[in-house]
């Protein structure tokens, strides 16, 4: 086992542990913070897999912007309602059941595929190479994504507007 493999397993353990903790917290803020750690781990993983730009973007956008947005909303909306019912059986049991089947099938599929034991080889995509590639080959998708962001912006803006008093005009 090489050093990188060792790093990979440690990071993988970290990701799984923190995610598991995140989904089982009753306190939403705790959950979000655990998730931030999980995303940091993911970023390390991306770096390990030779995508440093994506690692950086993950930290900046995912862990930095999206999770902060979550925290903002959580703290903005005062959750005074009684603590949520944790894991009702009718929801938890089917999820666990099907999840287990899914895991088993997935594992079997993975190990049945002949090419899955080949270890990954190290490679690195420098940001410059990466950017050149993106803007040369997939510039249209980037434009579409920016349009999408615009739409999201407008939508969020519209939804968040607090109207004066005419409830009839409100439509989701």
């Amino acid at each position, binding site marked *: 086992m090489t050093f990188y493999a060792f790093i990979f397993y440690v990071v993988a353990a970290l990701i799984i542990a923190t995610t598991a903790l995140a989904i089982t917290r009753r306190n939403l803020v705790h959950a979000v913070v655990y998730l931030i750690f999980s995303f940091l781990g993911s970023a390390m993983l991306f770096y390990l897999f030779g995508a440093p730009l994506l690692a950086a973007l993950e930290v900046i956008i995912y862990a930095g912007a*999206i999770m902060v947005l*979550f925290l903002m909303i959580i703290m903005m909306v005062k959750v005074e309602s009684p603590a949520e019912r944790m894991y009702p059986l009718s929801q938890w049991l089917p999820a666990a059941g099907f*999840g287990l089947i899914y895991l088993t099938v997935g594992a079997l599929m993975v190990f049945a595929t002949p090419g899955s034991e080949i270890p990954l080889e190290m490679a690195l995509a420098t940001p410059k190479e990466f950017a050149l*590639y*993106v803007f040369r080959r997939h510039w249209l998708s980037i434009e579409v*994504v920016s349009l999408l962001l615009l739409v999201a912006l407008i939508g969020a803006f519209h939804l968040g507007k607090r109207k004066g008093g005419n409830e009839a005009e409100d439509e989701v």
Partner: protein
Amino acid sequence: MIVPFGHVLLLAGVLFLLGLFCAVARRNLIMMVLGVEIMLNAASIVFVAAALHWKQLEGQVFVLFILAVAATEVSVGLAMIVYAYRRTGSFDPGAYNLLQ
């Protein structure tokens, strides 16, 4: 030489499962969206590992898009959650059952 590709896939699978569990088994809208985020993250791990496995950069490009879409979706989703909370007063999805 890092790990076999299968191990990465397994990791992503477990992560996806955790995200699904969070989305389905918790009675809080915000946790639902969080679960979706976790699932998206798992998918992006797979994409990056695949890019490494087959030495194609498309995988990483797609992760870019996933990131953008995730941001979009979270913002709009959370805005809707806030709006819905103002209308019904709770985060419990059981309260949002207008069709029943």
